[in-house]
């Protein structure tokens, strides 16, 4: 089922006097996994809603699997599977009834819809709960059923809007496994997430958006590089001594969470740090050089910290 990519060019969406999405452009190659990463309210869901024909564009153009979103919306809908931000399944129906309904709506025959539902329930680890009403499901089970519901008919392009928001670590891990298996099947995947770890882990490329604009784009590795070199971390007790020893000797020193952090570092910096500490007789418990996390990349690229959200 290859052959469907996503192209977005100068996409704009305005709600009243608020520009929710402003000149957003990116491409998802057929078979690739792209993560739209950004804080709550960045415009990620609006992009997905525009691409899945739920919202008209106010500017720019977009195509999904070769179908123009504005010109051929039914072509788009026939090429996509959308798993929205909320697990949209009917609570009072069983998992199986939910899946059969979607199969029948998309014109599978009765037997075919039942077979496909059974296959998906097994594949998503829901076989035991298949005939229980969804309201008895855990958050992770609901989310998997939700994703299964959008895969009843195979589509070349899948949109996953915040697939793990609100899940506990176990549920999140299970969802990640499911996404990994989709990716092996070669479908084109566009997912949104507020979790840097998730984007890092699942996506081939990350499009970082903030306040409706693309602020950075690249592979997880490239983004980390764009933030500057590596980070040198020094663990010492008490940290103040180490901080005093390093001030003036190396640039970009700060204390962060009980650690001394030197940003934009390289092998030379490491040597300077060791020398400066020795000069002052400060003993470090640990000195190491690492690549910046995506969290740090986010702050560097957007100028503010990722907002924690209640939802």
């Amino acid at each position, binding site marked *: 089922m290859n052959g469907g990519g996503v192209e977005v060019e100068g996409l704009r969406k305005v709600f009243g006097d608020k520009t929710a999405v402003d000149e957003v452009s990116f491409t998802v190659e057929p078979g690739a996994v792209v993560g739209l990463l950004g804080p709550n309210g960045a415009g990620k869901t609006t992009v997905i809603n525009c691409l899945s024909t*739920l919202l008209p564009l106010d500017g720019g153009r977009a195509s999904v699997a070769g179908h123009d979103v504005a010109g051929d919306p039914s072509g788009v809908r026939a090429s996509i599977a959308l798993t929205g931000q909320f*697990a*949209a*399944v009917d609570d009072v129906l069983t998992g199986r009834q939910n899946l059969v309904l979607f199969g029948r709506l*998309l014109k599978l025959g009765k037997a075919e819809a039942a077979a496909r539902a059974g296959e998906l329930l097994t594949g998503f680890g829901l076989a035991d709960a298949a005939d229980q009403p969804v309201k008895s499901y855990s958050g992770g089970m609901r989310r998997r059923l939700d994703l299964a519901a*959008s895969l009843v008919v195979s589509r070349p392009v899948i949109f996953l809007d915040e697939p793990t928001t609100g899940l506990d670590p176990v549920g999140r891990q299970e969802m990640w496994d499911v996404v990994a298996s989709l990716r092996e099947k070669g479908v084109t995947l566009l997912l949104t997430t507020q979790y840097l770890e998730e984007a890092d882990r699942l996506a081939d490329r990350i499009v970082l958006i903030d306040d409706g604009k693309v602020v950075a784009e690249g592979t997880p590795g490239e983004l980390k590089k764009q933030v500057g070199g590596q980070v040198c971390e020094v663990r010492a007790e008490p940290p103040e001594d180490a901080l005093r020893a390093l001030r003036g000797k190396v640039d970009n020193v700060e204390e962060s969470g009980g650690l001394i952090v030197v940003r934009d570092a390289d092998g030379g910096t490491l040597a300077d740090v060791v020398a400066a500490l020795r000069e002052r007789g400060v003993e470090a418990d640990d000195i190491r050089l690492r690549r910046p996390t995506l969290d740090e990349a986010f702050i560097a690229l957007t100028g503010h910290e990722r907002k924690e959200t209640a939802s």
Partner: protein
Amino acid sequence: MTARTEAGLGNLFGQGLLLAGRNIRLNSIADTVSTMVIFPIIFVFGFLALFGNLLSVRGIDYAQFLPPAIVVQWMFSVAITAAFFAASDRRSGMLARYRALAINRGAVVVGRMAADSVRAVLAIAVIVATGYVAGFRFQAGPLAALGFVALSVAFALTISAGTSALGLASRDPESVSSTLHVIYLPLLMVSSAFVPADAFPGWIEPVVRHQPVTAVLDALRALAEGGPTAGPVVKALAWMAGLLAVFSAAAVQAFRRAT
């Protein structure tokens, strides 16, 4: 897999029917025996006990007068439930899911209307049966009786279009349904539902006479009792056509915007 799943009447009605089945299943959780059977019975006999003697002094056979009012009341209830489910589907993301699915654009609407019609017909059956026990009769033949049912269902669907527009624009089923109760109760009270228009104080009587709920009630009573029916029925249909035009435009707008 290559079958067209969006365009065409076959898809509209096939998918509409599937969604109607889904809606009825969801409704059946909300509709208990008490709301669908016991409440109408309490209303019919309760109002009869309260006003029956009072109005017989004015020469009104209240057992004949009352059931259409309870029917109209229940048609409002059907419409408010429709709004509740519209807002629930919006909140749960179900509506967005249907809209992004390669199904006929109108199937969601057909599914909603069909499910509402089923509820309306059920309610009418219970109320009319209760009315029969109390002394209500269709006096103008089976065709007029059928017209009574059809007009009632059409009224339910007309106001459902309006209430659903509100429901679709909201994500809060509870607040939508309490807002709608605030609108519908005065409309029903200040109509000829429970007492005839000339029983109201003079200053409000013109409002009672010329509002749509009274028009529908007059038409339903004419269909039940016989006598001149064309005038009241045409007046009721005119009101409903006007309301439907406004309501459905609003509902379509809200449907297109709902994500």
